[in-house]
């Protein structure tokens, strides 16, 4: 029982990281049909920037802010330079383009930050044990901040004009243009959101899961699977998908074999694509974001 609780708790905090990355996939995909394979690199880059900012003497909150700003700028530049110029964007074209960006970002990170994996200093070091379950403070930080950020994103789409305009672009792009919403600006805003949630995920995860120039690959993949579990069009689905994936991974690692941990994501992906292409948590296809 204690084992189970321990695994579930660890799974939830890891899943919260996937959930944030999944939100990034959803925010971009709904508005522009782009599957952004550089989403994981947003997280890795944020982690590395935060680590080196702390290394150069900045306090942790300032380092996190620098990381967030850097990734936000990278995401916006990426949209302007690689997505916007394409006349007829299809999901296939977007995969090729963003794979290119992802590779370039990885090379750049390797060049700037070197090949080593490092961990950011935890926001609060240490932890405690309750009912036999050991909990690290950092895991609580992850859960709390991810919950705040996910709620903020949800609130944004539901209650602000800008958020509603993004949903309008996702559901009826032609009508959105006719009421005066610019699809170009919507796409830019979607990338900005993706950059921000990716950066938060990267900074939160780094103290526990470590960051290197290539950790974006796994993070991105897991986030993508989580988003797909939710049908790729729903923030709520992405969050649930992330948490589910995190828990299942940890249960598999704990009860079956650690080596199978990373296989869980692929298995889930195959099962979902075969059984329910619209996602496990996707309700009706219309309700996007």
């Amino acid at each position, binding site marked *: 029982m204690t084992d189970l609780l321990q695994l579930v708790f660890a799974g939830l905090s890891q899943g919260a990281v996937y959930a944030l990355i999944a939100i990034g996939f959803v925010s971009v995909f709904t508005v522009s049909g782009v599957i952004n394979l550089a989403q994981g690199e947003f997280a890795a880059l944020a982690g590395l920037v935060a680590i080196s900012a702390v290394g150069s003497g900045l306090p942790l909150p300032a380092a996190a802010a620098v990381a967030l700003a850097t990734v936000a700028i990278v995401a916006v530049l990426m949209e302007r330079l690689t997505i916007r110029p394409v006349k007829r964007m299809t999901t296939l074209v977007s995969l090729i383009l963003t794979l290119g960006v992802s590779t370039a970002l990885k090379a750049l990170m390797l060049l700037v930050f070197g090949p080593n994996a490092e961990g950011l200093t935890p926001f609060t070091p240490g932890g405690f044990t309750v009912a036999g379950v050991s909990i690290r403070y950092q895991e609580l930080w992850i859960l709390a901040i991810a919950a705040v950020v996910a709620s903020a994103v949800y609130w944004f789409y539901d209650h602000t004009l800008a958020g509603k305009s993004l949903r309008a672009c996702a559901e009826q792009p032609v009508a*959105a243009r006719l009421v005066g919403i610019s699809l170009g600006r919507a796409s830019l805003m979607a990338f900005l959101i993706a950059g921000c949630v990716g950066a938060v995920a990267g900074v939160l995860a780094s103290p526990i899961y470590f960051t290197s120039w290539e950790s974006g690959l796994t993070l991105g993949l897991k986030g993508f699977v989580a988003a797909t579990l939710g049908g790729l069009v729903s923030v709520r689905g992405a969050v649930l998908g992330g948490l589910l994936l995190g828990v299942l991974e940890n249960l598999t690692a704990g009860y079956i074999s650690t080596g199978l941990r990373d296989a869980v994501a692929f298995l889930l992906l195959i099962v979902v694509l075969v059984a329910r292409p619209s996602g496990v948590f996707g309700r009706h296809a219309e309700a996007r974001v």
Partner: protein
Amino acid sequence: MSLTVRGLVAGYGRLSVLHGVDLDAAEGRLVAVIGANGAGKTTLLRALSGLIPVSGGTVTLAGADVTGYGPERLARAGLAHVPENRLVFPSLSVEDNLVLGAYTRRRRPAAERAHARDRALELFPRLQPRLQQAAGTMSGGEQQMLAIARGLMAQPRVLVLDEPSVGLAPRLVGEIFAALGRLRDDGLTLVAVEQNARAAFAVADHVYVMDRGRVVLDGAAATLAADPRVTAAFLGGGVSADGGGKPPPATDTAADAGLR
């Protein structure tokens, strides 16, 4: 605000659909455009509201050349387009659909938007009890009213509508056209593409007949309604004032009636 179209040429990629269309909608007039399926009516509206590129001719709003403007810019310039098939934002509430209709006015005082909302709801009181309902769950007629109301939220000077009556029961058609008539009386310029020629003739000031990408006939509604070519092709008998009656002819009767 008047809308003038001169020699408009447009199409889809290599396919040319409009071959030089002229159209005038003077301020405060309701102009109807009728024509068989595939005549290019929707294409005309798409071209003049910037959804598809224009390869020749001009579009003028209140004397200012707006040819080649994108739809976002035209929306800001005072043109609202109620598209074919309504295209409401399905998962958003009726209220939010209206809010987004006023997107171009988002930096104006809230009182202005509230005023536009009141007027739109006054015109379509059926929307009032459904404000919190998801737009996609409304009936076709309600969605059509919402689409028009959303267009009005921008407080446009020119409103173009693509088949506002399609798929609606005769009574609703009458209701919608009566609403358009009231908007015209308030000074709005309207261009309505319509399959239901009876309903169109009943309220329009001027009617254009399109065929194969060209305007083949136009004139004051009363004059055209008496034209035997029009009665044969589109009215199938007398014009009734209630906008009801038989559904429009499904076949291409323009040729039979000698419009080509």
